[in-house]
């Protein structure tokens, strides 16, 4: 079965009077992504998590910092849906609050670090010469920079919305290795004929990077970004443990998991809701990444299966 837009397009294109806009890559990619059921499911799950994270606090009368002295370590009940922790805080309220932080930190770090890596790597590889030398120097410098030290110095000065800056700091120290890989891929792409063809057609260098270089390293970038999402959530935890990043009484999924680990067997609700949401989150991001990769790579095996038969 040809999908509806395809059939329409074919019709419109064969009709001389009615000029159809030739489908651009963005539309073709979107169509292929939407035809990928697991990817759409992943996207839906991520969306639901956001809804949960931002609508959740309004659903319960507990706030994440409230302490219910009448219910310490009580299991899930009508009063405390997901139970309470050691000092009587509502686990549901805390988890959704933590989810807010972790979703944003994870996605922001994943996307920002990968975008930075792609830009720096592709520019260094494509332009070569002193651009390459300069960018490689910066990359290497950041690579040997004691990121932990920098974050620990900077984060205590950030009050309130500081955790956003904290996410950017994490991103700042998370792109270098990817950038180096992208750079070497770009160097080999630069010599490919289709890039050369674009150059001879007067396509500008930045457009070449955006249209030809980056899409051709996209598979790698997407895998890298999905891994970065998960690891950002975890490194935030590690840093929070040392007192940077998200500070008590504020919470993130990471700090909740860290706190609940010891009680995982005895009081499972303190641990499993946070851990479960993190797993769901990372899984969903992976599904989206998979779908995006297949949508961008036209040769991937899991193409829309109906198409071959249709034509």
């Amino acid at each position, binding site marked *: 079965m040809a999908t509806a837009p395809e059939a329409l397009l074919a019709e419109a294109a064969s009709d001389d009077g009615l*000029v159809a806009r030739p489908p*651009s890559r963005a539309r073709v990619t979107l169509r292929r992504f939407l035809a990928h059921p697991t990817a759409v499911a992943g996207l839906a799950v991520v969306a639901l998590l956001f809804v949960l994270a931002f609508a959740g606090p309004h659903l319960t009368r507990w706030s994440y910092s409230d302490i219910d002295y009448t219910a310490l370590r009580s299991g899930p009940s009508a009063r405390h849906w997901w139970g309470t922790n050691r000092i009587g805080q509502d686990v549901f309220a805390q988890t959704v609050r933590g989810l807010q932080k972790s979703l944003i930190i994870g996605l922001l770090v994943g996307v920002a670090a990968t975008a930075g890596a792609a830009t720096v790597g592709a520019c260094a590889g494509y332009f070569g010469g002193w651009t390459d030398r300069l960018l490689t120097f910066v990359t290497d410098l950041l690579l040997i920079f004691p990121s932990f030290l920098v974050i620990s110095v900077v984060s205590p000065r950030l009050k309130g919305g500081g955790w956003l800056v904290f996410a950017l700091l994490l991103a700042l120290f998370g792109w270098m290795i990817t950038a180096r890989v992208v750079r070497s891929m770009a160097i080999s792409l630069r010599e490919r*004929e289709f890039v050369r*063809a674009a150059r001879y057609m007067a396509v500008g260098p930045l457009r070449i990077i955006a249209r030809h270089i980056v899409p*051709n390293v996209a598979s790698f970038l997407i895998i890298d970004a999905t891994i970065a999402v998960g690891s950002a959530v975890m490194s935030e935890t590690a840093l929070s443990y040392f007192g940077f990043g998200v500070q008590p009484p504020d919470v993130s999924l990471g700090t909740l998991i860290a706190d609940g680990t010891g009680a995982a067997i005895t009081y499972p609700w303190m641990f499993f809701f946070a851990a479960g949401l993190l797993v769901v989150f990372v899984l969903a991001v992976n599904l989206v990444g998979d779908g995006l990769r297949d949508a961008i790579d036209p040769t991937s095996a899991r193409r829309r299966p109906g198409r071959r038969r249709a034509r």
Partner: protein
Amino acid sequence: MNDPVLDISGLTVDFGGVPAVRGVDLHLGRGEVLGLVGESGSGKSVTALAAMGLLPAAAHVGGSVRLDGAELVGAGDKALSRVRGNRVAMVFQDPLSAFTPVYRIGDQIVEAIRTHQDLSREKAAARAVELLDLVGIPEPRLRAAAFPHEFSGGMRQRAMIAMAVANNPDVLLADEPTTALDVTVQAQILDVLRTARRETGAALLLVSHDLGVIAGMADRVAVMYAGRIVETAPVDALFAAPRMPYTLGLIGAVPRLDADAEGRLEPLVPIPGAPPAPGALPPGCAFAPRCPLAEDRCRETEPLLTAAGRAGKATHPAGAADPAHLAACVRAEEVGALRPLDVFPVPGTDGALRKAGPGGGRPVADDVLRVTDLARTFPLLKGAIVKRRVGSVHAVDGVDLDIRAGEVLGLVGESGSGKSTTLFEILELRPPERGSVEVLGRSVEGLTRRDARALRAGVQIVFQDPMASLDPRLPVGDIVAEPLRAQHADRALVARRVPELLRRVGLEPAHADRFPHEFSGGQRQRIGIARALAVDPRLLILDEPVSALDVSVQAGILNLLLRLRAELGLAYLFVSHDLSVVRHVADRVGVMYLGRTVETGAVAEVFARPLHPYTQALLSAVPLPDPVRERARTRILLPGDPPSPTSRPSGCPFRSRCQVFAALDPGRKERCTTQAPALAPQGGDHTAACHFPAERAVL
């Protein structure tokens, strides 16, 4: 014929259920040369490899291959090794893979001899040197101690043949032995193969896609299509009166170097469509989807290979009773009397198209490209960490070209002649190292960015490998629109142009949302052409546009180029190593050797009366797909390989291989060794760079 040395019958090969060879019968008589022709994917190489038992374990081989009555299919490794390299030897397309890089050539040949013969090391070594001498390797005693990578491609192929004949085999299998080589080297290697065969009396199974090579070498020919033999006949009969539409199409699709009596060229006939995928064969005759003569009965049962072509009963009407001429076609008798053009319709205008009349002179128009004395050198660097410049590669060293609006200039030369470097120098639009480049009447000196962009709209390029030159991640519509967008065309224009362009090159506008890998090779090249046409250029630079394609597909692309040129008044700079193709599409030709233009002129003139010794040798090395004419020609065989472009000899750079120079008396030789000949007019607009130009007919 009565006593075949190699008897292949009912051979089948499949790779994981996908059939590659589907019942092949071949009989190779003692001392006979059998040519096996087919396009890529037809199963010809697999057949040869299966006969040697050289297929990977994943291949499932059925049927029988008998060598002097001894069955080879299913024989154990031991038995096969006794036969391989001893009674049957193989010459591969890529000789580098056949030699072990870390052993000396001589030692490897000694090894080959001593595996099968009881000879002392010294005797075997002496024999190895003898063999190297036989295949024309100069200073064989010294060269025996060389490593494979120290040999050029042609030399390696010679050494490979030496190794193959080391044990006086009964059968030689040569799988595309000259495909990767330049035509002058190909002529040498074919000559060596002939010598080797004469010396050993071996039968030769020559696998090739090149009808010219087959016409010159083979006694009998078998044509393969989709894993089966579809026609087999003595070489003369096959070329004169093929009985299978596919063979007819192949012959009609090959551009020819020689014109007919009136000097006209036949239009090429493209075979429509593409060969079927091995996993998805049509029922009945595998060629039916592409065959203009197909009838309903063709699609029912697969026709057998018979003298009359009719499945089951063999009738022998008068005139078709040659028992050696078999065809797998239900209409074989009719086909025998037809010519390619009768069977394969050449779409309207394509067939009628002629190039600017012969002798009609050049169009009166302004130049779209003028290159004078262009040079480009690359530094030769040495050292792993600290690079030192140890010399220069003179890739381009004095090239002159001029193309007028609406004209087609063919630029020919062998690999290393600097053709591609010349192109890229022109396309970079930057001031050259030496000489001058003028594009569309503008010098490339001092162009601003805006000027350069505007100029690029007038000059577009089509690359050799259509897969590599199309971004695999972009839908075809976006690919074709790219030059338009680079010129800041508005969306409405892009939307209108893309379907129009696709239709113009013979593709479905509705396929704009597909990706390059979903198209066949020929279609991809059409996409490349559509992209180049997007901004209405005046000059199209074509870099070997058909050399990656099978002949039947190539013909379609060449016809398209001719049609576009007539419709749009384009000028082409057509770069190719294939002189027949240039003969077919170009008005004028420039011949390059070692980075210099050595001869230019109108195509008809240069091909009929070449003046430069190199052009003469080049033309004489191209095999003609016509056994009668091919065998009657005398060939100029150039010795050796082109010298490396790092050394820049004094005098004429062609001296080391020049057949005219070799015959000169010492007094006149002096001139060639001391003065580099300049490109000088030789009457009309025919120019040649030689001190002693002499006409010589070579076709």
